[in-house]
């Protein structure tokens, strides 16, 4: 049984002028699974995400989405395919409430006016689908929410419309332990609902807690894509720091 990856990149290369950032990178993300993207600072994680999201189209290589070859040259292309990126800064509007933020730029209309009831109903269903009860009213302004609550709103925004791939950039980085744990459980639930989730994280323990696969970047090259069930903590640390670990990674 082989499942078609939702996202399948092959031989991706990217340079900024003379600076070569990604070299022959292959990367896949599967529906229903969390693929953790790990690597040291400067390994190319953000550039790879920007290639996927159409911010920086790759110079070379093949981009496949659900088995079809596609061209992604702008964030809009990625968004139309159903790829959503939750950046570390979350990009939420402080002065608007939860519902308004969820539907920002894609408000539901009822003839000439906005369909507020419909939007609130969808917002509620989405949040309860993530088993989130801690937000209180869906009409609370973002400025009154904690860091973890904001992260949940950003994630809910990513899954509101029928997205296929959600990429989360360090979702637990700025949070306390209780909120981090809750976010990890929410992220796990996203994948269990059938989405392909890509999780960028520096926290190896978080990666082991929720991921199904681990993709390790080292100096712009993909040194390993392995099942989390097959590797140990030490191997992953070695992949990140040396590009090789046990029997996986770069051949020396």
């Amino acid at each position, binding site marked *: 049984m082989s499942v078609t990856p939702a996202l399948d990149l092959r031989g991706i290369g990217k340079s900024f002028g003379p600076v070569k950032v990604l070299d022959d990178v292959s990367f896949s993300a599967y529906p229903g699974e969390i693929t953790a993207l790990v690597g040291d600072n400067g390994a190319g994680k953000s550039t790879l995400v920007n290639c996927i999201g159409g911010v920086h189209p790759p110079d070379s290589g093949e981009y496949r989405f659900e088995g079809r070859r596609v061209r992604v040259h702008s964030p809009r292309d990625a968004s139309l395919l159903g790829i959503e990126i939750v950046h570390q800064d979350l990009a939420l509007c402080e002065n608007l409430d939860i519902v308004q933020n969820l539907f920002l730029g894609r408000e539901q209309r009822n003839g000439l006016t906005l369909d507020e009831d419909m939007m609130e109903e969808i917002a509620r269903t989405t949040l309860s689908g993530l088993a989130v009860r801690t937000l209180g009213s869906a009409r609370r302004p973002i400025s009154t929410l904690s860091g973890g609550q904001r992260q949940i709103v950003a994630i809910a925004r990513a899954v509101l419309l029928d997205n296929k791939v959600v990429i989360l950039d360090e979702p637990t980085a700025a949070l306390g332990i209780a909120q981090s*744990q809750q976010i990890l*459980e929410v992220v796990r639930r996203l994948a269990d609902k059938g989405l392909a989730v890509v999780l960028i994280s520096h926290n190896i*323990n978080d990666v*082991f807690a929720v991921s199904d696969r681990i993709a390790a970047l080292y100096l712009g090259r993909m040194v390993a894509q392995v099942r989390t069930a097959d590797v140990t903590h030490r191997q992953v640390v070695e992949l990140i720091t040396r590009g090789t670990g046990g029997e996986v990674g770069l051949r020396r």
Partner: protein
Amino acid sequence: MMKAGPSQEDVRRHNLGTLLRFVHLRGPASRATLAESLGLNRSTIMALTTDLTAAGLVREELPRGPGRRAGRPSLVVRPESTRVYVLAFEVGVDRFAVARVGLGGVVLDRREGVRTRDSDPAELLSVLVAGARSLIRKADGDAVCVGAAVGFPGTVRRADDMIMFGPNLDVGDLRLGDALSRRLGLGIPVSVCNDANLGALAEHERGAGVSCDNLIYLHGDVGVGGGIIAHGRLLGGDEGYGGEIGHMIINPGGRLCACGAKGCLEAEVGERALLHHAGREEDPGQAGRDAVRDIVVSADAGDIVSREALHRVGSWLGLGVANLVNVFNPGMIVFGGTLRDIYLGAAAPIRSVLANGALASSREKVKLRTAALRDDTTLVGAAEFAFAEVLADPVQVLARLRAPEDTPV
């Protein structure tokens, strides 16, 4: 007497139970959805819902909310959550909880309290009875209690609900279920079950493992309990003591367990072991769930002693999980109670040991999840257990329970 096959009455009882079970577990559903999901024709569904409505178990109403389709709307069948309820009890080493849970699994009301570790069993019984009575008083006048069950951290004999062994909570020779039933005087028996077995049931029916028929639930409190769901059913063993994963010996000659053996999983990953490794066992104020969570918080903040403690406990837990994966080939392992915090805080050592210790074919697909019902696993499991009788034969059971008050004086 020989029976040729199920009688018409048996079939009807079975269908009533199936329909009620569907709306109990999956929530309100339209007649059309029920017909499709249960594979019965619409007139049968109508007859069944009429019977259940007459018995006061469900009610039918017009659908609400968006998503209206063309044509005459199909009526939505809802469980009568406030009129039909059970009492669920959770007895923990440090705390207790009683809840009134409505048909459909809604926790309508609850009472919780703390328990001192070596208090008298009679005192425990009194607080449980007081909690339950205050919940019953708050119920609607026409509401009926259809069952009651207790989750208890110990081994319980299935034949008579006798608590055989509770190393962390000794109740002597108290027959908890019988005593509760007598003191409550509702005319219903009170079942007693192992808490982690109930947790397994709860996560299987309402939690992380809804679609998984081969599941293992691991529950951390002072000790470590377990419940094994195989082919959709709880594995009880010959007398109902099965699933004592906490007493699987993983470190021969290791730490002494409350059961008398050495190196049980519970002895190596239970609360006492974690507090010991973290150098906190001498502190009298440090015990229970909060103490375990404090260590996970300290580890996250960078405290090296706590990190080392979590790492050691995580490695032993990984070894236990590897054994379970090899023996049972579960589709999912769910970590609940304090083990949720330990799993999230020590996933790296747990999964590293699992990668080395479990067979590749068995470990590849196993899903490791935290309890979706959070701290309510035992309580929800007790409620599901208490609902079992009414779900098996809805109309008869309700008729019997309502009978006394219908009799003219």
